[in-house]
């Protein structure tokens, strides 16, 4: 083979198609421009606080959807337990906010008083420090993902098996957090966060700041994951999704690849959790309900899996609809959601992207996407 390589001139343009920057995807560029526009609106027009808050939450959900799309759309691993990593981020953030408030005001959080304790449990130490809290959220979600992923991928648990075991994981975590003796608020969770970095929660500046941070994080996550999936690792991810055994017989350790992306995805989900909690002002074990984790997958499927932009569109569209309908006609929302899922699953294999007729190439999603 080497002899042939020496004698033959390279007959084709050797630059792989996908080495081009993320700018080549119009959908993604459009979304990034929309994010920029939203930032400008927030800063310039100063909309009503609930609008700002809604934009911020939608951005958080979009980040969460991108984290799932990264492993589902590109690696074919459907996690039905991503709520766990979201919750880890959320809980660590809530711990930071509470210990920050405790040190500033001297009033112990409700659940601490409820349990009859004098101070916060020992493992809350240092969480007053925001960078440490962020680090802990990332490290913890990454570590949990690593242990679970290592055990699963090493023994080649995949496909539907992986999905339902990850669901059991989040379910068990929910039961665990419902206990009152965990030191994490138990059934009622944690709420009543008066301050963020010393500023009063709920002030216009803090609300806008949080929304901007969420939009910024979304943009950063999109650009980063796009760079990842467009490169060599992204090609291996697609190869692994479509035929893992084949990829292994070509000399690639797929366990390492899957584990790395899985941990990255978990950490992105945790980042979304960190940004989510100060915006809604509460975290409780219900974010660990299996249904919520499935809903993340539903956003991705509705938006169009295997396209990062699709995940964003799905998360924003479904949640905007949910915000509106669960206020306007709460009885009807579950029916609409289930109908939406069925329509997408049956008629629009690429999700809403089918409507947008932005399908430049990926007809293969029709076959490969559902694995």
């Amino acid at each position, binding site marked *: 083979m080497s002899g042939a390589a020496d004698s033959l001139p390279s007959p084709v343009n050797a630059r792989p198609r996908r080495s081009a920057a993320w700018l080549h995807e119009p959908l993604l560029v459009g979304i990034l421009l929309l994010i920029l526009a939203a930032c400008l609106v927030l800063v310039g027009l100063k909309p009503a606080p609930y609008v700002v808050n809604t934009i911020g939450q939608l951005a958080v959900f979009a980040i969460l959807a991108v984290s799932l799309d990264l492993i589902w759309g590109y690696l074919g691993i459907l996690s039905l337990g991503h709520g766990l990593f979201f919750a880890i981020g959320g809980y660590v953030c809530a711990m930071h906010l509470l210990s920050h408030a405790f040190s500033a005001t001297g009033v112990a959080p409700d659940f601490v008083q409820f349990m009859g304790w004098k101070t916060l449990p020992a493992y809350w130490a240092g969480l007053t420090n925001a960078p440490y809290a962020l680090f802990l959220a990332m490290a913890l979600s990454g570590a949990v993902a690593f242990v679970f992923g290592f055990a699963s991928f090493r023994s080649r648990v995949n496909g539907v098996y992986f999905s339902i075991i990850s669901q059991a994981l989040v379910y068990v975590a929910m039961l665990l957090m419902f206990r009152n003796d965990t030191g994490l608020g138990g059934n009622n969770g944690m709420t009543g966060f008066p301050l963020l970095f010393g500023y009063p929660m709920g002030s216009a500046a803090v609300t806008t700041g949080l929304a901007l941070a969420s939009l910024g994080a979304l943009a950063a996550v999109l650009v980063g994951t796009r760079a990842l999936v467009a490169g060599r690792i992204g090609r291996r991810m697609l190869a692994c999704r479509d035929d893992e055994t084949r990829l292994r017989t070509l000399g690639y350790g797929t366990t390492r690849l899957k584990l790395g992306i899985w941990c990255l995805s978990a950490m992105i989900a945790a980042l979304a959790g960190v940004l989510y909690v100060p915006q809604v002002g509460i975290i409780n074990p219900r974010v660990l309900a299996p249904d919520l984790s499935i809903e993340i997958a539903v956003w991705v499927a509705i938006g169009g899996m295997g396209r990062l932009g699709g995940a964003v569109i799905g998360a924003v569209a479904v949640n905007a609809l949910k915000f509106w309908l669960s206020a306007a006609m709460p009885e009807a929302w579950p029916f609409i959601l289930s109908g939406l899922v069925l329509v997408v699953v049956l008629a629009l294999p690429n999700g809403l992207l089918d409507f947008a007729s932005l399908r430049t190439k990926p007809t293969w999603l029709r076959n490969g996407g559902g*694995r």
Partner: protein
Amino acid sequence: MAELPQPVSFLVRGVRVALALILMVSASMAQAAADPIDRSALARAVCSDGAGLARGADDVVRSAATASADDLAFSGSILRALLDRRLACVGDTSVLLDRPGGSEGRDAATGATRSAAGARSPVLGLRQRGLVETGAGVVALLTGASTAQRSAGLATLERRAAAVPEADTILERARAAETDAVLRAAIVQAMQAAALNAPEPARRRAAIGAIADAPSSAARSRLASLRTDPAYAADPAFKAALDAGIARVERAVTIGDGLALSYNALSFASILFMAAVGLAIIFGLMGVINLAQGELIMVGAYAAYGVQEAFRMVAPGLIDLYLVAAIPVAFLASAGVGIVVEALILRHLYRRPLMSLLATWAVSLFLINLVRVVFGSQNLQFGMPSYVSGGVPLYADFIVTWNRLFAIAFAAVTLAATLLILKRTPLGLDIRAVTQNRDMAGALGIRTRRVDRLAFGFGSGLAGLAGVALCPIYSVNPGMGATFIVDSFMVVVLGGVGTVVGTVVAALGIGGANVLIEPFYGAVAAKVIVLVGIIVFLQRRPEGLFVARRRR
């Protein structure tokens, strides 16, 4: 009795009347000679002064152990009437009225009708009331028509044991005559309690032995409380007897608790098996995990509820049979829903298992909310037929409850039927063929799509059966499916794809582990341990316990 339907209740009443007659006859034969109650003296005594009344009531109590059933019934009617203020005195003659303040009644002694004009009501002082109540209670215990009356009589007797010198003999007579097992056990307990407090040490020791012979946690605490008794420190024989008795009871209670735990584990495993076996068959055949399986269980339970309501409206006399009639209805209801889901949705998704996961989730969301809108989200009220309520105390605190036995037997029958269908019917052969090699089966002319649909219906119907099996044990509401679904997924993962035997073993393992770990570390820890155990197990056998051979 109230909840029993008419014919059964008639029957029970008839038997009871016959028994009472036999008892009365035998009692009067045995004790005709002994201590007759002087009826006319009693009838006069209640209308004399307070002391006379007290003496009359006390006489009833003293002679109750040996008096004939007739005499007891007579005294009982007088004492009851006194308590109900239906007894009037015309001179020193007592008249029984139909209702308090009535104008006419029967002469207590002669039975002749008499006017109650100008009659006075006897005054019951505190002491008299106590004695009259005691007497009425003793009579009720011995001759009461219903279990409730007799057990109320027992309660009175226990409360006033100090005023009843003949308590032992009365209780022994009541025990010998008692037909209800539960009440008889209560009477025995009362006798033991009386003996425990007896003045003679030998009798107390014998009572300890007798209590230890019927071990239960109640017996344990009764004996344990005797450690503070002065005799425990003073009398070495008493101490030895008590310590030995407690040790014996404790051992038996431990064994009984173990049995009860295993029994609960077995019944939970049975429910889990029924919830999971349909899932396993469908998963083996089509690679589809049906997230709506829990809701198919709910459909089965609601179908059972519908059958109950239909019986209540159309044939209230046969309502005890509704649970049996619900079995085919629930199967067909869930199977019907399953087949519709398959035909409308899953048929299009066979090559995309993860999408079918989401689609079945949407179906479950839809079903939950549909049921919530139609029936509301409260728990359904099931009337429990006699064959699934109560149970038989078997050993110590271990009671074989009928509802759990129903679930276990139901699961066993389902297992047998499933195996029979899979191994002995043409459909079963087709299902096994398609499970093992879909393309080959198709090439042999098996209509794989039709097999898929029937198998999906069959698996869904099995979930419906699980719904019937669990409605006597668990609460039934729109969200009930979620309780079982994660556990039954774990059963499928652990058991292996599409094997019924694997499902049985895994259900026993997971159900057993959950129930057995729970009392020691709590329900949450049990779930954590089971999940970790499964993940560790999959390290060694990623395809589950029983692996079907497949070709790449």
